[in-house]
C-alpha cells in the first residue's frame, strides 16, 4: 500500500485542525471561545503552506490513484483555503453578535472545505461523491444555525431537501456509469466509454442525470429553486460561504469528471451545459431585477454567474475553456466574498438587508460603499476588474470554439445585469440616509473588504500571471 503523505498534506492538516478545534472547543468555558477564531485562521494558513511540498514532487497520485495532487487540484486547494481563511477572518464578532455556536461553526467550515478539496482532487467517483456530501451536509447544517429564526430553519430544510434530491439523481447517474463500465475510477471509465459505446442511448441518459445532479449542487437554472430562500434565510456569513465554496467545488468536480470520464461523449454533454448556461443567465439576471432584498438579489445574481461559468464548461474540452472557468471562479470567489462582507456589515452591524437600507451608505461608511461599488462593477464585467478579465477569457474561449451565439448571449446578459447592480449603487450614493452615524463594521470584516478590493483590482490589472497559472494547471498532460 503506497501512501504518499506529502500529496495529502493540506487535507491531513485540515482534518487535524478540525479535530483540534473540536477538542479545544470542548475544553473552553462557554463565552470564552474567541481564541478559536485565531487558531482556525492560523491553522488554515499552515494548511496552505502544506501545499508547498506537493508542488515539489513528481508523483501526483496516491491511494491507488484515488486522489491526485496535480496543478489542477492545487489551484482549487489554494482557492478553497483562501475562501475559508477570509470567512474565518470576518467571523469572530459576527458569531458573537448572532450568538452562533463558535466551535461548531469552525468545525463545519473546515469539514466543508475538506470535502471541497476532495472534490477537486478526486479521480474516483466514490471520493468525488463523498467529498460532495461532506461539503453539502455541512452546508445544510450551517444554513440552519440560527435556530430561533424561522427563516433560517426554512433555509436549512429547503437546502437539505433539494440537496438530498440532487444527491439521489446524481447517484442514479453514477450507478448507470458504474453498471456500464464496472469501474469507479475516472481514467478507466474514460477508456471504457471510448468508441462505439459512447453513442449508446443509455450513456446519454446517465449524462443527463449527472448534469442534473451537479446542476442542482451548483444552483444552475432550472435546478436553482432552493437558492433564493437558502440565501435569504441563512446567516449572512454562511451565505457568503456557500455562494462560493460548494459551487466552486462542484465546478471542479464537473471539470474533472466530464473531461476525463466522458471525454468521448463530449458532443452530448457540451450541448446540455450550453442549455443550462443560457437558461441560468437569462433566468438569474431577469429575476434579479425585481428583488428588494439584497441577499435574494445576490442569489439570483449568483445563478447568472453560474450561467457565465457554464459557458466555459461548454468548451471545457479545450485548454482555454478549462482555464477560463478556473480564472473566472477565482474572480467570482473574490468579488462575491467582498460583496457579502459589505452586506454582512450592513445587515448585522447596520440597518438591515433590504435595498432601502443602503440609502446614503457612501456618506455613512465610504469604504464599504466604494468597496461594494467595485465588486458590482466587477460582477457586471467592466474594466479594470477581475470580473472583466474573467468574462473576457470566457468570451474568447467560447468564440474560438465556435460558440459565437453563446458569447453574444453572455454579453447581452452582462448588459441586463447593470439594471439591478445600479439600483443599489444609486441608493448608496444618491439616497438619503435615515441615520448619519457610520456602520460599525468590525476590523475583520473591513479587512476582508480591503483584501478582496485589492485582489479584484489585481486580477483586472495583472491578470496574466493568474491566467498562466490556470492555463498551466488546465494543460496538464494527465488531465486530458
Amino acid at each position, binding site marked *: *500500500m503506497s501512501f504518499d503523505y506529502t500529496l495529502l498534506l493540506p487535507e491531513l492538516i485540515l482534518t487535524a485542525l478540525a479535530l483540534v478545534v473540536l*477538542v479545544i472547543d*470542548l475544553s473552553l468555558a462557554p463565552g470564552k471561545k474567541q481564541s478559536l477564531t485565531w487558531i482556525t485562521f492560523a491553522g488554515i494558513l499552515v494548511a496552505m503552506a502544506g501545499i508547498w511540498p506537493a508542488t515539489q514532487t513528481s508523483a501526483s497520485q496516491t491511494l491507488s490513484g484515488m486522489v491526485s495532487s496535480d496543478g489542477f487540484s492545487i489551484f482549487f486547494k489554494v482557492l478553497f483555503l483562501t475562501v475559508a481563511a477570509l470567512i474565518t477572518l470576518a467571523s469572530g464578532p459576527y458569531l458573537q453578535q448572532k450568538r452562533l455556536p463558535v466551535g461548531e461553526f469552525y468545525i463545519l467550515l473546515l469539514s466543508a472545505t475538506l470535502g471541497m478539496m476532495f472534490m477537486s482532487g478526486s479521480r474516483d467517483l466514490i471520493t468525488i461523491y463523498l467529498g460532495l456530501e461532506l461539503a453539502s451536509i455541512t452546508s445544510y447544517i450551517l444554513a440552519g444555525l440560527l435556530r430561533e429564526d424561522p427563516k433560517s430553519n426554512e433555509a436549512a430544510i429547503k437546502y437539505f431537501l433539494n440537496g438530498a434530491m440532487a444527491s439521489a439523481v446524481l447517484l442514479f447517474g453514477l450507478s448507470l456509469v458504474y453498471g456500464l463500465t464496472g469501474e469507479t475510477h475516472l481514467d478507466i471509465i474514460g477508456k471504457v466509454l471510448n468508441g462505439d459505446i459512447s453513442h449508446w442511448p443509455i450513456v446519454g441518459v446517465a449524462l443527463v442525470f449527472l448534469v442534473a445532479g451537479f446542476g442542482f449542487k451548483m444552483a444552475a437554472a432550472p435546478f436553482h429553486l432552493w437558492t433564493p430562500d437558502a440565501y435569504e434565510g441563512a446567516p449572512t456569513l454562511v451565505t457568503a460561504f456557500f455562494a462560493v465554496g460548494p459551487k466552486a467545488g462542484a465546478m471542479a468536480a464537473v471539470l474533472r469528471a466530464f473531461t476525463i470520464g466522458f471525454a468521448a461523449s463530449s458532443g452530448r454533454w457540451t450541448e446540455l451545459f450550453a442549455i443550462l448556461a443560457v437558461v441560468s443567465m437569462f433566468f438569474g439576471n431577469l429575476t434579479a431585477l425585481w428583488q428588494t432584498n439584497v441577499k435574494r438579489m445576490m442569489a439570483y445574481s449568483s445563478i447568472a454567474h453560474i450561467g457565465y461559468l457554464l459557458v466555459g464548461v461548454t468548451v471545457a474540452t479545450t485548454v482555454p475553456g478549462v482555464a477560463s472557468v478556473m480564472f473566472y471562479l477565482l474572480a467570482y470567489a473574490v468579488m462575491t466574498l467582498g460583496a457579502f462582507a459589505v452586506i454582512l456589515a450592513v445587515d448585522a452591524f447596520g440597518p438591515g438587508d433590504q435595498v432601502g437600507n443602503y440609502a446614503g451608505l457612501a456618506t455613512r461608511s465610504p469604504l464599504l460603499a466604494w468597496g461594494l461599488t467595485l465588486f458590482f462593477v466587477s460582477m457586471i464585467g467592466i474594466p479594470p476588474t477581475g470580473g472583466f478579465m474573467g468574462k473576457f477569457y470566457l468570451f474568447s474561449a467560447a468564440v474560438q470554439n465556435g460558440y459565437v451565439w453563446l458569447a453574444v448571449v453572455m454579453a447581452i446578459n452582462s448588459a441586463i445585469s447593470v439594471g439591478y447592480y445600479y439600483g443599489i449603487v444609486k441608493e448608496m450614493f444618491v439616497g438619503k440616509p435615515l441615520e448619519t452615524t457610520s456602520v460599525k463594521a468590525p476590523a475583520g470584516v473591513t479587512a476582508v473588504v480591503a483584501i478582496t478590493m485589492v485582489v479584484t483590482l489585481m486580477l483586472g490589472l495583472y491578470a496574466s500571471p493568474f491566467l498562466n497559472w490556470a492555463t498551466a494547471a488546465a494543460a496538464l498532460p494527465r488531465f486530458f
Partner: protein
Amino acid sequence: MASQSYIDVGMFAVIAIGFVVVSMWLNRVVAPFHPDRAKLESYECGEDPLMDAQINFHIRYYVFALTFFVFDVEAIFMYPWAVNFRNFGSNALFVIVEMFVFLVILALGLAYAWRKKVLQWV
C-alpha cells in the same frame, strides 16, 4: 450455484412467517369470542389506558437515536475489518492505524455529545 446456500434462509423465513400466521389463525378458530367494552380495551398491565398511544417524545431522545445510529454504522464497518484481520498480511499495521483513526474520530463525536450534556437524563 452459490445461492443454494440461501435456501435455508428462505425456509427459515417461510417457517417464521408461517408460525405467526398459523397460530393467529388457529387462535381465531379455536378461541371463544364474546367481546364487551372492558375486554376490547388495550391491555396495559391492569392500568386503565389513558389518552392516545402516540404521545410526544422529548426531543432529547432523538439525539440518543442518532448517536445509536452513528455507532451502528461504525459496527458495520468494523465487521469486515475483524473478519479479515489475518488476511491483511504485510499491510496489517496500516489497517490497524486506519481503524484506530476511524474510531478516534467517532469517539470525539461521543465526547462532544457528552460534554454538551445531551446524554444527561434530566
